[in-house]
């Protein structure tokens, strides 16, 4: 036999416990990290001294963290052997990936909060932009529009999307299912602006040219939302073990009740996450709403009549068409962006609670 599996890795040091063979001490990763950052910091110091530019703390930290990855791998290879080194390398990379993703998040967060805070006042949430020029004004109209249109889009998309994914997972065999799967993928590729154009043209056929209504916006959004709902729910439904379906069937439960009472509850957490993602995906859409729902400065509660403002369109137009003083427009734009993010956060939080409440309770 040529395979050797069981020998403890070769290390020079005599160690009492053979199972501890060659491990870096627990503190080693941190020591190496600090060392890597120190090295990087001093290199940056030299460069900054040499070139006379200011000291770049962010860069020093970033490069230091980067340096840590090969360093830990090297040390671990030397002391612990190849496999452990690989494990450490991946741990470092995976953690690094996470921290890397935090950079834009934190940067965005700081930007939005610091710039958005300027207009986070009572007026902002009790006024619309009707008859407002220059400073002041608020976003009631945009909040109302966003909630109504996104809500309507959700009402359209969630049943269709969820039922479609159920069809694909539970019923779909053969050509229609394959076709639908494929088309759903294609649908994910509808550019948002095309969705807007389509909805606009569709409603122009029925309501006359040039009509811009909240419902047209909602239809455009559902075009973007449905594929996300289908895709993510489908993925989650497929993860429900067949054993559970069989258990229900064997109890003489009809298929539809099995789906409603066993399959859906088991996957509800994932499905809720998917739905939240789809809402987050569309609630920030600008281009289609600009085309399909138009623009107004006043509150409109009627989805079926008249133009409707939404938060992203508001943000965009405040930024793009700044009047005098420009700062007032920018402040409103950022504050509206912050509001939008907060709305999604709250929705997300609700979804998480829902998911936690219904999630399968694994005892172990």
């Amino acid at each position, binding site marked *: 036999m040529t395979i050797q599996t069981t020998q403890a890795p070769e290390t020079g040091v005599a160690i009492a416990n053979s199972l501890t063979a060659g491990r870096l001490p627990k503190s080693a990763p941190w020591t190496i990290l600090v060392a890597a950052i120190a090295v990087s910091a001093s290199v940056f110091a030299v460069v900054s001294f040499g070139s006379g530019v200011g000291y770049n703390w962010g860069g020093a930290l970033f490069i230091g963290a980067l340096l840590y990855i090969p360093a830990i791998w090297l040390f671990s290879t030397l002391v612990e052997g190849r496999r452990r080194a690989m494990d450490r390398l991946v741990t470092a990379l995976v953690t690094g990936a996470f921290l890397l993703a935090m950079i834009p998040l934190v940067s965005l967060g700081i930007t939005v909060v610091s710039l958005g805070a300027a207009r986070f006042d009572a007026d902002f949430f009790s006024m619309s932009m009707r008859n407002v020029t220059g400073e002041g*004004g608020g976003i009631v109209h945009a909040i109302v529009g966003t909630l109504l249109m996104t809500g309507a889009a959700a009402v359209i998309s969630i049943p269709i999307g969820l039922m479609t994914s159920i069809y694909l997972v539970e019923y779909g065999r053969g050509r229609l299912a394959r076709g639908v799967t494929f088309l759903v993928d294609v649908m994910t590729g509808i550019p948002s602006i095309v969705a807007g154009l389509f909805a606009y043209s569709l409603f122009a056929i029925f309501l006359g040219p040039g009509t811009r209504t909240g419902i047209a916006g909602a239809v455009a959004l559902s075009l973007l939302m449905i594929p996300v709902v289908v895709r993510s729910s489908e993925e989650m439904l497929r993860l429900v073990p067949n054993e559970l379906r069989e258990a229900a069937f064997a109890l003489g439960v009809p298929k539809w009740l099995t789906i409603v009472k066993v399959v859906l509850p088991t996957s509800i957490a994932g499905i809720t996450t998917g739905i939240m993602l789809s809402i987050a995906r569309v609630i920030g859409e600008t281009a289609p709403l600009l085309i399909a729902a138009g623009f107004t*400065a006043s509150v409109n509660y009627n989805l079926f009549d008249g133009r409707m403002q939404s938060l992203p369109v508001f943000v965009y137009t405040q930024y793009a*068409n700044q009047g005098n003083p420009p700062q007032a427009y920018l402040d409103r734009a950022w504050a509206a962006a912050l509001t939008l993010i907060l709305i999604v956060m709250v929705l997300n939080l609700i979804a998480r609670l829902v998911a936690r409440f219904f999630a399968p309770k694994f005892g172990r």
Partner: protein
Amino acid sequence: SNEGGAAPSESASTLSGNLVGAGASSQDAAQQSWIAGFQTANPDVTVDYDPSGSGAGRETFLEGASDFAGSDRAFKDEELAAGGFKKCAADSSIVELPLYISPIAVIFNLEGVDSLDLDAATVAGIFAGTITNWNDPAIAATNPDATLPDLAITPVHRSDDSGTTENFTEYLGAAAADVWTWEADGVWPFEGGEAAQGTSGLVDAVSNGNGTVGYADASRAGDLGTVSIKVGDEFVPYSPEAAAAIVDHSPFAEGRAEGDLAIEIDRTSEEAGVYPIVLVSYLIACGQYEDPANVDLVKGYLSYIASPEGQEVAATDAGSAPISDSLREKITAAIDSIQ
């Protein structure tokens, strides 16, 4: 809340209803001010203006989906000939009113330099990419006092189709025909240089860069350096007055219907005190509406915009140039002719 409802008691307005317009985003800030002013005076009126872009605005108006349009250019002769304005009576002409006049500033971001004096050829050279460094002799020649660094010039142009670009390139083509050989167009005519979306995007790109230069609605120049343009023998900085002046010194397009006040800007004018890089944005309405319901509203709204008061709020809120009294006379006559 500021939503409509109870009318101010002293309001004598008899107007009520909904007015919808769409078009040029350049007018948007001014439109918002006009709408605010008009709605305040007429509490039962709601005016909506979609800043969806001039092209979209003209299409919308053509389809009859809006009562009026805002556009950075007048309809072309062939478009007028094709006709088909759904909101307008069968053989009605349209009314095009140059109500929003705004200077376009050449802006730049260069450490230690606040303003430059340049002639048309140099500006054209910079944007055409033939003048690539700030210490170029052509720039130094007209700016003996400025300390010009050895720094690459990054010209920034608009990446979207834009009235600003069209007016700017029209100026370059007219005033520096040797250097600028492209036709006037809303789309930047060649590849090269940095591109940015919308006035705001362009201003941001210029502000965030170093050695950048661009062109934008003058109200957005902010703290950036601006260029004084050579007109005749003088270098003229942008100003509302100078912008209004060039409009006054320019002829109306020929062969147009009465009330169609399309202007052909004289970019090469050497008149003293004119600033030739201006954007003229029109408000466009029917000469005669098919359905008379909204006629009073349209006339009321346009009259308000043309009034000294309307022009003044736009100047304050959007930085535009108030029209001259002589132009106002012609415009008022055109508005009165709407039926």
